């Protein structure tokens, strides 16, 4: 069940996008989220579509995987589409079935909004699919570094983030193991009436909590034993490199932004 989730998963393929600097990728995503709201007609949406598909192509993530991973989300997109079509009452009536009237603006808005939603999801999955969690954290830490001036705990935040990201797979594995152990003792997860299902969660959650606390304690001791004492003066093992591709990617996105401004109605 969990196995098919695509969110937050890194797919190790060798591609230009994978090799880019996480800082440039983060900047691109941030900007993309802003400029997608500039699109408001067919041609601007087409531009966004071309850009997204181009980036996907560059990333060389297998299409079949994207499709299975995004299938659940496609339903949400479709649902948005249907809602928009049914409840927008602008423009002229195209079809009317009984008391339900469908307007041309409704169709247009529906398509636009669901496209926007879809492209946002595609682009943000692209970030996590092509960038390891550690890279994302490093990128964020470097980008947010200036905030240190106003005493924002950038390093601690990044450390927290990388530790939690590091332990997500461990936690999933542990969940799987304990679930199986309890299933072998006759627990049935995800079936039966609600009360039973809630009760089935206890034998799973308690061992998980116990082991997480234990692990946190061990980690803290191990870090202290190796002389960790905060971010002050700490250098980095993984260096970030800004390459030509990163500049090009930003330039391309600026180009897209300019085009969107020109062509939007």
């Amino acid at each position: 069940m969990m196995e098919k989730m695509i969110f937050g998963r890194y797919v190790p393929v060798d591609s230009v996008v994978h090799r880019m600097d996480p800082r440039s990728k983060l900047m691109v995503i941030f900007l993309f989220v802003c400029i997608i709201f500039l699109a408001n007609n067919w041609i601007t949406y087409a531009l966004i579509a071309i850009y997204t598909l181009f980036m996907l192509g560059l990333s060389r993530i297998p299409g079949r995987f994207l499709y299975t991973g995004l299938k659940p989300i496609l339903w949400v997109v479709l649902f948005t589409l249907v809602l928009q079509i049914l409840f927008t009452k602008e423009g002229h009536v195209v079809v009317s079935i009984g008391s339900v009237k469908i307007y041309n603006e409704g169709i247009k808005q529906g398509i636009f909004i669901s496209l926007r939603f879809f492209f946002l999801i595609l682009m943000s999955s692209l970030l996590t699919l092509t960038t390891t969690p550690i890279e994302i954290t490093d990128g964020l830490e470097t980008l947010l570094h200036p905030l240190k001036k106003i005493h924002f705990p950038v390093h601690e935040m990044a450390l927290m983030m990388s530790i939690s990201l590091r332990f997500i797979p461990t936690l999933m594995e542990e969940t799987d193991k304990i679930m199986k152990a309890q299933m072998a003792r006759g627990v049935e997860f995800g079936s039966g009436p609600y009360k039973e299902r809630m009760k089935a969660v206890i034998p799973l959650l308690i061992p998980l909590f116990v082991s997480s606390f234990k692990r946190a304690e061990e980690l803290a001791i191990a870090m202290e034993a190796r002389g960790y004492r905060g971010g002050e003066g700490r250098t980095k093992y993984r260096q970030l490199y800004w390459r030509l591709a990163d500049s090009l990617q930003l330039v391309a996105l600026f180009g897209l932004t300019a085009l969107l401004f020109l062509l939007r109605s």
Partner: protein
Amino acid sequence: MDIVLQQVEYRYQAKTPFERIAIQDVSITIPSGVYLAIIGHTGSGKSTVLQHLNALLQPYAGSVSIGDRVIKANQKNKNLKDVRKRVGIVFQFPEHQLFEETVEKDIIFGPMNFGVSEDEAKRRARIALKQVGLQEEILEKSPFELSGGQMRRVAIAGVLAMDPDVIVLDEPTAGLDPRGRKEIMDMFYNLHKERNLSTVLVTHSMEDAARYADQIVIMQQGNVVKQGNPVEIFSEPEHLMKMGLDVPNVVRFQLKLQEKTGMKLDTIYLSIDELSTAVREYIRKDNRL
């Protein structure tokens, strides 16, 4: 109850780029009452095989029959409780599954899930506790205040109290002290004999495999590469060494002895007693000393 695996294949994370074949073309027959050991290098698929024995995993290809229940690939299987009641699994580090307030509640958790009455479950809890070598006082304690070894025993008692026909053990003594290991392994063996259980043991200890098992299966990279009784298996030590596996110390001693003295015994001996008797006979017959 017989368990038969027929050409079982299993893939983790099937249909994603992370797809990976864990076991392939695995056929094993576990007749009622047999003690079967599965050995193999780490990552060879032993635990994956075990999880098919009570339908925690369902085959990607092939079929598993557990008693009269057949689990096939590509079909929905409901109501697996009955199977799981009859096949108890003790996982690697089973102490991680403890969660109740008291030891007693934790031990009766399994049996009660399978519809045993509370009184009966408590009765079984006492018996199981004695079997794993713990005192009754412990019943009212919290499992989390016990030592690691005691927790392990409580977890094992929780599986024994289910009163399964087949007991499946995934390295049940990993991380225990030598004496505790022997106690637990002997306990499982006695139980196996007394209750006429089938037992499947995954182990890295060739000593244990040689001492307890009737049948041994060797796995390598997801395949079964050899099956046979312990004498057959350990008669080809070079074969085992090539797979990164060891032979029991007794066998190693016999081989060394033969190499150094030119002595030729007709078979491999798996216990010190048998070997020393054989050596004595050999010496007597040849009148060498």
